[in-house]
């Protein structure tokens, strides 16, 4: 056994020149749980559509799971031209081995030149395994994507104390792989009339051969979900402590939104790390973002600058946050936030006529 194991080394790069010309098109691996696709998958299809048009190549999606036919159709509505669908009981829960097997088979059969996945827990788990198996280069946690004239994928990600972006290429192998942060790109509007093809892919698997078993999934309903929030009220060091965050919570509640925080506020323990927006936290893209008592450090800004509307409240008129805000209020947040809350309440609650 030990002997056998010692000799096994998966993912050794082939020697010599390989002809990659058959590899064409972009494939997005769609992530789902219990028949529900993750928003990042549709965001990726949205961005990949742009790249596919630039390359004049098809946009493919790979859907794996059990009872996920609907997701395959949904993928077409979000922009996929061809969906590879692998629907099998062994794929009910995500597990590295069965998912890798299907994924590798599809990649080797249909030869996409680019493969993209969400930089989620599952996406990273799978991408790391796939890229090693193939083998190919993987750019993790990308926040910008493009393609050049030589059909190279330009995947950019934060580097060097996070103030810079590095563009990473893989010239040597195909497909070129990247995982991409949730919330960075925008999904195309869903179009049920869009035409596309669903191709079923089967892989001979036996449950008895799969060592790892998922016993249960315990959903955490309290888990913060900043990525999907439409309205975010974020506070920073200026908020002064947990009590200050109560003011922000009231504004968030009035707007049906959620609170969030800068790293200064999470490091100080005023808010849980799960609420942190930015480079080392979550990338968000709400319709409305309030930055309250946040100076606007680059590591914070990269995580929220794609919000549709940004309102900054800061007592320092020179705070950099004002450079990226649509509207700026120079003032004391302890005065301004309750005023905002009250004014919203007045306008949003139906007026009762006497």
């Amino acid at each position: 056994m030990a002997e056998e194991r010692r000799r096994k080394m998966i993912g050794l790069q082939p020697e010599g020149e390989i002809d990659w010309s058959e590899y064409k098109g972009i494939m997005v691996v769609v992530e789902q749980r219990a028949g529900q696709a993750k928003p990042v998958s549709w965001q990726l299809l949205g961005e990949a559509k742009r790249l596919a048009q630039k390359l004049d190549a098809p946009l493919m999606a790979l859907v794996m799971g059990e009872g996920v036919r609907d997701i395959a159709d949904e993928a077409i509505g979000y922009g996929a031209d061809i969906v590879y669908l692998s629907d099998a009981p062994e794929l009910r829960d995500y597990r590295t081995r069965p998912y890798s097997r299907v994924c590798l088979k599809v990649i080797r059969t249909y030869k996409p030149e680019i493969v993209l996945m969400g930089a989620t827990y599952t996406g990273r788990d799978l991408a790391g395994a796939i890229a090693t198996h193939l083998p190919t280069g993987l750019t993790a946690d990308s926040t910008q994507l493009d393609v050049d004239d030589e059909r190279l994928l330009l995947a950019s990600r934060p580097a060097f104390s996070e103030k810079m972006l590095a563009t990473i290429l893989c010239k040597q192998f195909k497909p070129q792989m990247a995982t991409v942060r949730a919330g960075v790109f925008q999904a195309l509007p869903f179009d049920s009339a869009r035409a596309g093809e669903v191709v079923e892919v089967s892989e001979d698997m036996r449950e008895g051969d799969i060592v790892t078993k998922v016993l249960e999934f315990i959903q955490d309903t309290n888990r913060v979900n900043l990525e999907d929030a439409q309205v975010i009220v974020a506070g920073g060091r200026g908020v002064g402590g947990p009590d200050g965050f109560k003011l922000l919570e009231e504004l968030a509640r009035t707007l049906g939104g959620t609170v969030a925080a800068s790293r200064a506020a999470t490091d100080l323990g005023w808010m849980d790390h799960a609420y942190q927006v930015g480079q080392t936290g979550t990338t968000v893209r709400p319709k409305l973002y309030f930055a309250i008592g946040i100076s606007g450090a680059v590591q914070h800004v990269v995580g929220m600058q794609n919000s549709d509307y940004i309102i900054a409240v800061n007592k320092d008129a020179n705070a950099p946050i004002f450079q990226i805000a649509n509207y700026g209020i120079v003032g004391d947040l302890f005065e301004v936030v309750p005023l905002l809350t009250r004014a919203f309440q007045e306008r949003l609650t139906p007026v009762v006529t006497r």
Partner: protein
Amino acid sequence: MRQGVPAVVNYFDMHGVEEALRIKDKYGARVTVLTMGPPSADKALKQCISMGADEGVLVSDRAFAGADTLATSYVLATAIYKAADTWGPVDIIFAGKQTSDGDTGQVGPGIACRIDYEQLTYVQKVEDLNPETGELTVHRHLEDGVERVKTKTPVLITVVTELNVPRRASLPGMLRAARYTPIVWTTNDFEDLDRSKIGLHGSPTIVSKTWVPEPKHVETEMLSGSAQEMSSAVIDRLFASELKQSLNWA
């Protein structure tokens, strides 16, 4: 080593080391800490020794510099095989984050894949381990909840900080660490290492450029007047925008 007892190799992460030591305390195991990095990384290895690890190995060579995930996982997989040859079968590998810039937790899965181990990422709790059968149950920390998963050794586990609180060094541990010199493995120590697959040269990904992103250009409107006036002005503008419709502000 007792039969059926896991040996544990780790590439440097204190939470992984702690969990390995707990297994050692409970069932008996040899804990080897393995890290790839510059010579200065031997400090961290000595710390692991002071906590109770049996060996500390530093995989270090200029030739490894500039490695991406693929090249790194190749070297570490090779080192794990060498550790197995040296100290016996490796049943559980705890992998943490690598210290180097740009690691995003992809090296762990890369190693598991290369040496064909089961792979469990983002583990926040080891619920149960049976040293006789090698079966273990863990909790994986995911975005929207926790997953309980059962598997069997050999397995590679990547950990999250919720897993445990690393212990402090014991006095005998500190004494041992003071005298201990970590083992260093360089390219010359790996017989079958293919030198074309390591370091910068063996890395398929290349950095084509780095730059400081241009800040997004926005027309900022700074409001004026009293706090009351500014607040109402902002709200007027928001209600006049498409947000009124998209956020259902009827």
